[in-house]
């Protein structure tokens, strides 16, 4: 089915190299995220205890640990989505580069959230068209002009390998895509606002093996330009793609290090047990 608005959506010139909007320039040196003695409690129950880690730039960091240990909560704290949990209290600090994420103004927060993208566990297409989904982030940051938005949509749909699949129906509701396509759309959507970090909370757990592999491969490809933090409960996935590993147990960071070192030569007793499958 060809969309009557097709002509309107397809970018006029597809050969120019893509240049992000000046509003969204990356800093010269990719920053790290530093979690500094961070505590988080929900209604008095302590969920994260004195977490101290550095999350390196341009690597895939996998956060592993048994279910309920606080992986998602830590990830949410990194872009302050944890604010919306009722009864949440935090102490300590988290910084992107030098900028504090925990103590920052409302206007800094929206900018920080732009710089830290999120790929959710289950795909969450916004209630708009495929085009609208990707343009949404740009629009809320004040980017205007159909031409510019078209270029961005085109570029990032290509990056996630979705362009050829959807180019004829950019105006259709995004919910009509398959789950795997939706997840790639979500990735493209967060890339469109030029983040430096990408957070992914079990981003492949709702997908079929093929789609799951596609997303994994994309992450590996993207780590040259982005720093990726993924929560995963499948150790095999972590083994496949992690450069750096954070092991959490009961809200505490037990072991941190290069993937090779943590997987092949874990220092801590609990890590050994977890890797051998004794705790899960």
């Amino acid at each position: 089915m060809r969309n009557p608005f097709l002509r309107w959506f397809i970018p006029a010139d597809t050969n120019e190299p893509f240049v992000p909007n000046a509003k969204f320039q990356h800093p010269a040196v990719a920053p790290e995220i530093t979690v500094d003695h961070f505590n988080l409690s929900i209604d008095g129950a302590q969920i994260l205890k004195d977490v101290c880690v550095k999350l390196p730039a341009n690597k895939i960091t996998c956060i592993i640990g048994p279910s309920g240990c606080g992986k998602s909560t830590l990830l949410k704290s990194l872009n302050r989505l944890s604010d919306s949990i009722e009864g949440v209290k935090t102490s300590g600090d988290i910084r992107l580069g030098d900028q504090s994420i925990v103590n920052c103004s409302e206007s800094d927060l929206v900018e920080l959230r732009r710089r830290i993208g999120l790929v959710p566990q289950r795909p969450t297409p916004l209630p708009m068209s495929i085009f609208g989904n990707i343009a949404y982030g740009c629009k809320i940051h004040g980017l205007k002009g159909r031409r510019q938005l078209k270029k961005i949509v085109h570029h990032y749909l290509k990056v996630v390998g979705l362009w050829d699949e959807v180019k004829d129906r950019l105006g259709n509701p995004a919910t009509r895509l398959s789950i795997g396509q939706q997840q790639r759309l979500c990735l493209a959507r967060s890339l469109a606002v030029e983040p430096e970090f990408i957070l992914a909370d079990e981003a492949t757990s709702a997908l079929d093996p093929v789609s799951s592999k596609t997303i994994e491969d994309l992450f590996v490809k993207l780590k040259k330009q982005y720093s990726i933090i993924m929560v995963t409960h499948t150790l095999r996935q972590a083994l496949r793609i992690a450069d750096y590993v954070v092991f959490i147990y009961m809200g505490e960071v037990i072991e941190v290090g290069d993937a090779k070192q943590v997987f092949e030569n874990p220092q801590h007793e609990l890590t050994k047990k977890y890797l051998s499958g004794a705790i899960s």
Partner: protein
Amino acid sequence: MNKLRIIKDRATGAIMATITIVALLLVIVMGIGLYLKSAPILAEHSLWDLLTASSWRPFKNEFGFLPFFMGTIWVTLIAITIALPLSLLTAIYLTEYAHRIVKRFVFPALDILASLPSVIYGVWGTLIIVPWISDTLAPHFVDFSAGYTTLAAGIVLSIMVLPLLVSLFVELFSSVSDELRAASYSLGSTRWQTAISVVTKKSLPGIFAAVVLAISRALGETIAVLMVCGNLPQIPHSLFDACYPLPALIANNYGEMLSLPLYEAALMFAALILFFVVLLFNVTSRVILYRIEKQQ
């Protein structure tokens, strides 16, 4: 034992189906009843004349229903125009901005407001809104207004449907998944941007259905409206004119002056118009809703 279960299952199924069909038939029977009762007036005047004539003099055998029809439409329109934006903003505040303590106090208050008998709204309108219009608002626009106006009826009605709309909207917005909000926030959107572009947009079919419900309620609201609308059989040309919606006509006059020829039939015909307006409105909105849902 097994047989008994099956028989029970079948019997209850049949009974429930019957009840449902009877309820449906009731609507049809009511429509037919109203039609039969208003047949005398339809025999004497053409349908077109009744609906388009604007003079109402039962003693002279002049029955024009246009003023009542227009009164109903105007009052309902004013009510929804006021109530819709206010209720949307309130619901957005409650679901997207307010602290949980605020919610805990506001939700019960809304339920109480929604369940107050309409006569109380009528009294309140007579005591507050009517004097306010005649003393404060109307002098800016017209020479004189007694305050019993289309506007007064619209305002009272809007206050009546407001809690209903707010609680429906709150329900709708709360059912939008937090993951969707997280997706929007994580791109750097503000609460307002998320509320408008994601939450209300996602709830659009529901918002539409809620408005239909509120309009149906407003179309039929009788007591509160007749207490403040002025009850003059004229087509309102400004907000400060009195009006006379259909339900008020029926409620005010039924049981009186029935000795007048055709008067009872005229009132029954008024009921028939109301019946059809509500029916038609509900059917069309259902069709539109179906379209919207399919689009999403």
